[in-house]
């Protein structure tokens, strides 16, 4: 097996991974950096983010306001020391991107423009039309090409971490084009491999969002934190789940039910605001969890519109006019016309909530460090936690940058901390075991299960039992079913026996990752007997700070369901309060 020695190995080359790589290269040009990703960097799902990135820059805004919006939006499950660090660093990181050439939208005087987003008291979202994530990703990727010390391993799939002497010392990865497994020896490893939205059938997430990074750390003994919190974005296209950015509402789009009523006023987000004059933190600019939950109630009441693709409400942007839509929301218009055959300039667009983001992830501290020394994580795959029980829109792009860089700094501190020499024999033995595991899967001929079959059952289970509203009974069913699927996964047989670009094998490995993640979602949700943010229980409808102002930590077991522990939330200055999104009370 080929051994590649490097100083820092980064798994994932989206926003967080690229930001980390650049930070490492800038900090010390002599560092050897291996940037490992299962896709070419510009294919990473950061590219699909539309609305923008939050950072305090304007004189009417303040760090305190950003703090309050984030912590309140997260239903007080955020670690407040992490949030403070995050909001402090956010403007610097966004400014850094400007200096790297990101085409941020501008004010007439040439300064960076900001737009309003849901759950914000002041508008503070930096945006590049409605392709913000795309521009951030390409700016980072292109900037990374400046640094010869960043060695890319494109289309390498990370298999297992190598943990020896109590610290992470590298990983094994499959070179997809050749089918060969390589051993990466690294002093520090950063995981930045994105979320796991593909556990669900109806999601804004791309095919690659299969929780590989989360599962990688989880199998190596790092707990996954708060996995039960899965964000539904309120406005997805009903036929394929394509995201229509919150910017639609930030610019003034409204949500109406089948009677044309702006129903959000019936769910504590009113009173109704004038059409086309959005008021911050009110009505359509309420937080994502509340909006998605309102849809669920409207559907129960029979107030939704029946479409060929299921029940919907309508996102009406007609009053914005063609010019504004073209300037601020060109992608949204293009997506609606292309994929739904409807033009938002001329007609209201049917939408429904769609799985969008994992608040939970690899347990890290404020330094982006996991409990395993030498292993760091950043981005959607990590849980710092700044997102708590419900992420504030436009915090995730900023999070990639802030904690991508933070992980890089921590990785450097770690490798400079006088590490003992690595035991090559022990590492190679682990790498060999990892290779044997893949070979066994690859060569198994007697299996009865297929990737597509198990995946379909998993998705169905998650959608039916772990959606917007959950009950103990359904969640128990989900736990049992996912455990069963994990068992049946051992009987998986591949049809494709080729070594070159074997996507059957890739999808099998991805399915394994998703099943691991899905089980932590189901078990975490079943055991959290309260309703908070994106986790809503019909059998425990109130928030329970007495028992559950805590992070869920799920620990891996190869055969059993995860062991659950709890960790206190860090509270510095904001005691849990009422989430107020009603204009009336202001």
């Amino acid at each position: 097996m080929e051994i590649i020695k490097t100083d820092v190995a980064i798994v994932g080359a989206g926003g967080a991974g690229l930001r980390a790589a650049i930070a490492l290269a800038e900090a010390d040009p002599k560092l050897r950096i291996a940037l490992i990703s299962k896709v070419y960097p510009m294919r990473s799902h950061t590219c699909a983010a539309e609305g923008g990135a939050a950072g305090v820059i304007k004189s009417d805004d303040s760090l305190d306001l950003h703090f309050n919006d984030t912590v309140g939006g997260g239903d007080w499950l955020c670690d407040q020391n992490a949030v403070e660090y995050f909001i402090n660093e956010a403007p610097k990181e966004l400014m850094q991107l400007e200096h790297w050439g990101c085409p941020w939208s501008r004010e007439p005087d040439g300064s960076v423009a900001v737009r309003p987003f849901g759950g914000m008291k002041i508008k503070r979202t930096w945006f590049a039309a409605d392709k913000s994530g795309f521009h951030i990703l390409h700016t980072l990727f292109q900037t990374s090409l400046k640094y010869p010390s960043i060695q890319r391993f494109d289309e390498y799939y990370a298999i297992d971490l190598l943990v020896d002497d109590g610290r992470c010392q590298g990983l094994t990865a499959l070179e997809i084009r050749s089918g060969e497994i390589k051993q990466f020896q690294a002093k520090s490893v950063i995981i930045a491999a994105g979320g796991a939205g593909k556990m669900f059938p109806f999601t804004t997430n791309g095919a690659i969002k299969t929780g590989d990074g989360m599962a990688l750390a989880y199998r190596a003994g790092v707990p996954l934190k708060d996995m039960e919190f899965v964000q539904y974005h309120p406005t997805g296209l009903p036929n394929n789940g394509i995201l229509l950015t919150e910017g639609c509402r930030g610019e003034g789009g409204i949500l109406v039910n089948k009677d044309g009523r702006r129903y959000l006023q019936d769910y504590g987000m009113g009173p109704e605001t004038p059409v086309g004059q959005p008021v911050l933190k009110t009505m359509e600019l309420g937080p994502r969890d509340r909006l998605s939950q309102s849809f669920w109630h409207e559907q129960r009441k029979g107030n939704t519109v029946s479409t060929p693709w299921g029940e919907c409400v309508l996102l009406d942007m007609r009053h914005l006019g063609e010019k504004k839509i073209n300037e601020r929301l060109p992608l949204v218009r293009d997506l609606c016309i292309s994929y739904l055959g409807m033009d938002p300039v001329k007609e209201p667009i049917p939408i429904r909530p769609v799985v969008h983001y994992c608040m939970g992830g690899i347990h890290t501290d404020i330094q982006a460090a996991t409990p395993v020394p030498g292993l760091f994580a950043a981005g959607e795959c990590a849980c710092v936690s700044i997102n708590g029980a419900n992420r504030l829109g436009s915090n995730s792009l900023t999070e990639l940058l802030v904690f991508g860089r933070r992980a890089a700094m921590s990785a450097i501190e770690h490798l400079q901390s006088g590490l003992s020499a690595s035991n090559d024999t022990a590492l190679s033995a682990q790498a060999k075991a990892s290779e044997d595991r893949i070979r066994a899967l690859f060569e198994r001929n007697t299996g009865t299960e297929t990737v597509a079959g198990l995946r379909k059952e998993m998705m169905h289970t998650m959608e039916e039992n772990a959606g917007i509203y959950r009950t103990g009974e359904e969640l128990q069913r989900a736990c049992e079913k996912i455990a069963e699927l994990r068992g049946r996964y051992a009987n998986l047989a591949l049809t494709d026996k080729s070594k070159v670009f074997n996507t059957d094998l890739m999808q099998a490995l991805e399915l394994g990752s998703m099943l691991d993640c899905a089980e932590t979602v189901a078990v975490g949700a079943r055991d959290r007997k309260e309703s908070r943010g994106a986790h809503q229980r019909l059998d425990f409808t109130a928030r329970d700070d007495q028992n559950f102002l805590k992070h869920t930590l799920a620990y891996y077991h190869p055969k059993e369901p995860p062991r659950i522990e709890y960790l206190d939330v860090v509270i510095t200055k904001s005691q849990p309060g009422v989430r107020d999104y009603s204009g009336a009370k202001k």
Partner: protein
Amino acid sequence: MSRKPYIREVSKTSWFLSQPRYKRYMAREVTCIFIFAFTFLLICALGSLGKGPEAFQSFLHALRSPLGVLLNLAALVAAIYHSMSWFDVTPQAMPIQRGEEFVPGNVIVGAHYGAWAVVSLIILIWGI
């Protein structure tokens, strides 16, 4: 090593037959031959002019032959096609930004046609 990337050879001589847009492109390029021929004719005209009035007269006479007329006609058609296909792409090749907006393509194309008409008119009047 299990990899063995397969390279599809592109025919050096018949590649343009594979796509209508390549054929259109080749048609545009072929106009060059006629324009080259016309340029060659002009040089011949200058040459004959240098040899004296008689030579020039016989050159003019030759031009009036069916072949000469045909050649000139073909060159004219080719030149018009070539010019028009160039005018059509001028908004791409020479965009003009006024304030925030770009000048609409049809204005730029129109200006080229206008300039063409004016220059042709001047030559025509001057010639008469």
